[in-house]
């Protein structure tokens, strides 16, 4: 063990010569350094998020002003995608559907999960466990580039004849089996087929990434870092990686079967006697679209936790750091993460109450769906009680982390009525569903994403992000998130259907909630504007932000702050070992209010910093 350590530090000592040796393309493009790969994931997925956000903003315009040309962007759409998609700058239902499908797909699979799991995971996890890099650096590079190819395929699919996929992010069959198969159908270059191929790349990438993350956490933990001393973020990444590892492959097999359906005329997901466009479908027959739903939701449900678990980890880190006291109950937090991870794998069919499953099956899924709220509430309680009696530092990361808590609460509680068949029958496929899951995926996930960026930015770049611009980013973001998603819950109760292209304009009972479309749309535009301070802040701080004077600017206790700033190749200058739990803040008998994991007790006592050894 010690010889391994000294090797690591030796490599790090040769930092400067090493930097000269690495050519530009190996350093920034085909890098095997976990930190660079983390940045690559983060930048790519933030770009995808911006793009997918923009699709939504255009859709919201259509919902507010159905059938009217979109100002400014309408003509651009017409030029880019052809007059069949946006004649005269008016969004066609076809285009609306493809924007909806791609907004969901890209946001979930190519923005939030890569950013939260792979972006932060790559950058933070090896640092937090004291590793020189990931266990398999070249595999790490491969997983990023597989993901990147997936993103490119999705982007390109907008420009093939007929446009991008239109069957929703769930690609429900038999609709998706026959989508885009009109005149001029090309077996490969059509939206839905490219969606499947892009997803196959994305899934393979995340598979390799999760193998890498789990192996790294199991094998490369430094001396003294036992399981119950791992920072909560590492725990959250571990559970997330297991979910991705085990839940994604069934979707890959489903994607392969759907490809067979589309390219070779099989009928895994299409029943016998199906009529398409008034004609008997030319398929072999005997498939089942429920099969697709099972395979899809077996991933689709854990996927929700794949993005919410890392946010719990990020928020946990920031709470501990900025309350200046240990998390209220570290162990409850960790066991809750594990319980959520396990339970999320056995509740998938609560998305399928309307498919006519039997009473026994739905009972099973209702029970476990309800049970999963227990660890979730425990986790929220840990965070809430951690605030009790704390002298909270209200810096920008902490503001975002604090706002995460109620957003997660609303998202979770609004989910309960959807987990029970009796209320789900009423609320199914209405805007209430959209409101519920967006609270999880948009405010909760993104607030923690921003919190993480503001928190780890000084370590990654050696500069702080600007506090004022950060607050200018924070307040409108929180307000307008709710401006978009809260009215959705209201519209849902009125029965407005989630996929209506005209936003309910044609439906009698929707009339008294139609004005909310404008509220949501204006909020969406305002939210877009609220991101400008962030973008300015990000790039301005990168080059001109206030310099970090200490390697540990937030006075934190976890290992990532023991590295030089920014960390070089090999991460640590000296061998690190861990002597205590992750969140030893305000330790009695110690003159500072934080006691880092890597400070040896002998040294502290010799220097007179420790009057007694904390038990």
């Amino acid at each position, binding site marked *: 063990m010690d010889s391994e350590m000294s090797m*690591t530090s030796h490599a790090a000592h040769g930092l400067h010569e090493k930097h000269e040796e690495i050519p530009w393309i190996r350093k920034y493009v085909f890098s095997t350094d976990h930190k660079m790969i983390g940045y690559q994931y983060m930048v790519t997925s933030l770009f995808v998020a911006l793009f997918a956000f923009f699709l939504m903003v255009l859709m919201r315009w259509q919902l507010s002003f159905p059938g009217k040309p979109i100002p400014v962007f309408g003509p651009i759409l017409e030029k880019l995608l052809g007059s069949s998609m946006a004649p005269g700058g008016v969004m066609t239902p076809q285009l609306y559907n493809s924007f909806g499908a791609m907004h969901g797909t890209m946001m979930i699979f190519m923005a939030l999960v890569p950013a939260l799991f792979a972006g932060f995971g790559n950058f933070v996890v090896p640092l937090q466990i004291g590793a020189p890099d990931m266990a398999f650096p070249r595999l790490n590079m491969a997983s990023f580039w597989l993901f990147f190819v997936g993103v490119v395929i999705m982007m390109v699919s907008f420009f093939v004849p007929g446009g991008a996929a239109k069957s929703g992010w769930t690609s429900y069959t038999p609709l998706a089996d026959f989508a885009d198969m009109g005149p001029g159908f090309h077996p490969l270059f059509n939206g839905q087929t490219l969606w499947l191929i892009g997803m196959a790349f994305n899934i393979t990438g995340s598979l390799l990434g999760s193998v890498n993350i789990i192996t790294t956490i199991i094998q490369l933990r430094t001396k003294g870092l036992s399981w119950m001393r791992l920072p909560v973020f590492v725990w959250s990444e571990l559970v997330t990686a297991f979910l991705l590892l085990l839940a*994604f492959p069934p979707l*890959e097999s489903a994607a392969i079967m759907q490809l067979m359906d589309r390219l070779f005329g099989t009928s895994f997901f299409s029943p016998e006697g199906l009529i398409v466009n008034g004609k008997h479908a030319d398929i072999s027959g005997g498939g089942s679209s429920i099969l697709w739903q*099972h395979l899809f939701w077996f991933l689709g449900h854990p996927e929700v936790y794949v993005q919410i678990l890392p946010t719990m980890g990020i928020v946990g880190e920031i709470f501990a750091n900025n309350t200046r006291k240990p998390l209220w109950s570290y162990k409850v937090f960790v066991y809750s993460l594990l319980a959520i991870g396990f339970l999320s794998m056995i509740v998938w069919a609560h998305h399928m109450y309307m498919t006519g499953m039997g009473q026994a099956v739905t009972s099973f899924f209702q029970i476990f769906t309800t049970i999963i709220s227990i660890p979730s509430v425990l986790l929220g309680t840990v965070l809430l009680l951690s605030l009790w009696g704390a002298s909270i530092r209200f810096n920008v990361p902490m503001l975002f982390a604090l706002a995460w808590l109620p957003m997660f609460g609303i998202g979770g509680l609004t989910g309960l009525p959807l987990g029970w068949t009796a209320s789900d029958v009423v609320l199914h496929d209405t805007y209430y569903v959209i409101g519920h899951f967006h609270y999880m995926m948009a405010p909760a996930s993104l607030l923690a994403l921003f919190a993480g960026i503001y928190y780890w930015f000084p370590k990654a770049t050696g500069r702080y992000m600007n506090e004022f611009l950060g607050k200018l980013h924070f307040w409108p973001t929180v307000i307008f998130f709710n401006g978009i998603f809260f009215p959705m819950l209201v519209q849902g109760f009125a029965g407005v259907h989630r996929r209506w292209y005209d936003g309910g304009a044609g439906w009698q009972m929707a009339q008294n909630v139609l004005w909310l479309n404008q509220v949501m749309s204006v909020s969406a535009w305002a939210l877009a504007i609220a991101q400008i301070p962030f973008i300015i802040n990000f790039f301005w701080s990168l080059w001109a932000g206030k310099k970090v004077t200490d390697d540990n600017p937030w006075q934190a206790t976890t290992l990532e702050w023991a590295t030089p700033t920014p960390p070089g190749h090999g991460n640590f200058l000296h061998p690190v070992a861990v002597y205590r739990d992750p969140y030893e803040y305000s330790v009695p008998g110690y003159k500072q209010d934080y006691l880092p994991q890597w400070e040896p007790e002998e040294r502290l006592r010799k220097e007179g910093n420790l009057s007694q050894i904390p038990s």
Partner: protein
Amino acid sequence: MEIPYTVTARPDTGLYNAKVGIWLFLASEVMLFGGLFSAYIFLRLGASHWPHHILNVPMGLFNTMVLISSSITMVLAWSSLKMRDFAKYRQWLGITLFCGVLFLSVKSVEYKDKFHHYGVILKNGQEITGHLAMSEEEAMRSDVLKIKPDPENAGDFVYQLKSIFSKPEAEEKVLEIPKNEIRWWSNFVPKYNTYLATYFTMTGIHALHILGGLLVLGYFWGPGASLYKRNPEHLANRVEVAGLFWHFVDLVWIFLFPTLYLF
């Protein structure tokens, strides 16, 4: 920069990195094939009709034995490496590679067989399977389909065994079916029915895994073997990991064979 535990095991886990990695990867592979197998069960339970005995069992059995043998030689290759006997390592791995190639060859013959086998579903629902007694182009143009139907005992093990080595004489009778009596006809492609769709998808993905395994093992037989001079233990670790993958792919076949050929 050195990553710890690539060659030696971490003391508390007793494993080197790649071994943890491969077991995790194999867990995900279990889920991938698990998705396919559960789809098979789901579809078969819901099917009104499920064809039997349309695959060549002797061929599948032969291939099963080929793969099991290759697993044994794989272990022998690894143990030779552990005992630092490079020549034997090359030899055993060579046999493993040969078995893999043999498997894929037999599989491609089976595929070709299926593509030359035709099925006709008449309007009254009756299904006739056999070989065309005319060229494919002729069959497309003609109003009458000339087909040599499979004999009654086509499902028998002995018949199937004979059919590998010779054209069975029973096929001489030619049936002429007017096209207006046919609901549809085609060779045995994935589209023909859900059973064949399952067969081609599952064995196809399995074959891709074999191909991937062959590429990796071929690399360790050829260019990758030079690692032996620098760090024989590292090579042994790599071969062990590749071997675990190889065993897994064999194991999948051991499930596929009864599922598709026998039941």
